[in-house]
């Protein structure tokens, strides 16, 4: 069995396993499982509602930025810099979109693989980049929003540093392995 197959099986079994273990363990420890479940689940609605203002603020700003075509301008400004390390200009929109928008970067990844082929260097690069970081700004908005935190201190800078490190490493490792 390959690594991928093993991981696939684990990820399918994980959730049923966790639910099963929690219920049986709770029952064995004489927890009133049904009542506790409902007690905990009650909060679900409140958490979801609490993040709405934060999500609206963040997604609208990202939406304006995407619709305006500012991304193309940014690509034009940054491409001389990224050319210095041999980073392909075609993959630059992906690097810029990834921290901002999940659906946006998925679209860019699909588009690049359609034009250049999924097994081309560019295709391998953008799909590695897609998996190497998360949509930082969305995660920050949702997670801090859920507990009403407005002053995020160094979270944005640390998050962006992590994105840059992930994207650059993705580029160098792809060059090493596929280049």
């Amino acid at each position: 069995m390959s690594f991928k197959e093993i991981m696939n099986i684990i990820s399918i079994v994980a959730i049923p396993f966790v639910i099963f273990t929690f219920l049986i363990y709770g029952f064995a420890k004489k927890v009133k499982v049904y009542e506790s479940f409902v007690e905990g689940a009650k909060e679900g609605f409140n958490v979801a509602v609490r993040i709405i203002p934060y999500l609206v603020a963040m997604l609208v700003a990202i939406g304006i930025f995407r619709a305006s075509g500012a991304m193309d301008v940014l690509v034009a400004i940054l491409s001389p810099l990224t050319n210095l390390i041999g980073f392909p200009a075609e993959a630059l929109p992906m690097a810029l979109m990834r921290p901002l928008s999940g659906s946006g970067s998925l679209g860019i990844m699909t588009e690049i693989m359609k034009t250049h082929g999924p097994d081309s260097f560019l295709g391998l690069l953008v799909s590695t980049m897609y998996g190497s970081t998360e949509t930082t700004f969305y995660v920050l908005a949702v997670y801090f929003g859920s507990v009403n935190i407005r002053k995020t201190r160094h979270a944005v800078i640390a998050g962006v540093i992590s994105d840059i490190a992930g994207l650059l490493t993705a580029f160098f490792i792809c060059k090493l392995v596929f280049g």
Partner: protein
Amino acid sequence: MMNYIWLALIIIGIITAVGTDIYESSVNKYKNDVEFDALIELKEKPSVETQVKGILKVSGEYYKNFYSLKNFTQDTIRNEITLRLKSDSTGTAILNISETTPDFWKLMAKGKGTNTDKLIANVKKFEKVGENSYKVSLVFEKISLVKIKQVLNAVIEYSDIAVKIAIGLIGVMALWLGIMKIGELAGLINLLAKIVKPLTKRLFPDIPPEHPAIGAIIMNISANMLGLGNAATPLGLKAMEELQKLNPKKDTASDSMVTFLVINTSGMTLIPATAIAVRAALGSGDPAAIISTTIVGGFAATIAGVTAAKILQRLKIFKKELEENNENKKEVEG
């Protein structure tokens, strides 16, 4: 920090949109008020004040030059058109936008903002040149402020998406908060925290080692690594709730929160499921080829992020925010 980034996204977006629109109108990108010549084949004889359907034909060369397009390779363009003529050979034409319509017309139709499935044109000339074949000159409706309209649409659309995402979370959120409550009362979360203590006491020194926050954090990170996005978010929000209980000032992020979030945003995963699925759908010979490179990328992002968070939290500007809060608190208490 968030203030500046948020403002920058909006301001840069609006300035770019306005700038692009001014530029596009100055070069008349959409050829407002310019006559477009084409041939139309009609199935029936045109009569005054009735609608007739036909096919508009134009050479790719003419189209390319007319709109000053850089990459246009199509030889001939054929598009469905509906005509309504007056007695003096003028009238109106409606161009139906379909899958086969050239991209630039699609863009123009989209740029109107309303009725995006058709382009309306004034017929300036209409002459018979052969059997069922007519020569026309068309002036398309004016198209302007395309980017600003798109930005406006995005504002409405994205506020809608934000609410839909939040509402979509309610179900899984309730499920996992319920399960976690059982685990908490049974002592399972504490047990989990105890197991990973050697690692977490370094990463999160300000959380008591057997606090439920650690259990929730571990479950969230595990879910992320297995690519279980649906479970990861509720577990992560549960962890935030626990971290908030330990947070001295409730509107400011604590050191542990930032460290936890950076681990979350760096997307360390063992199975990049989405990327693999897209690659497979596009006919890749080896969709899973990116697993190893993605693990390396995600790992590097996590290390860099955690290191950055640990260094930055000691900087005066970020530390000050926490201390200021404490002073305020003392004043209130005093």
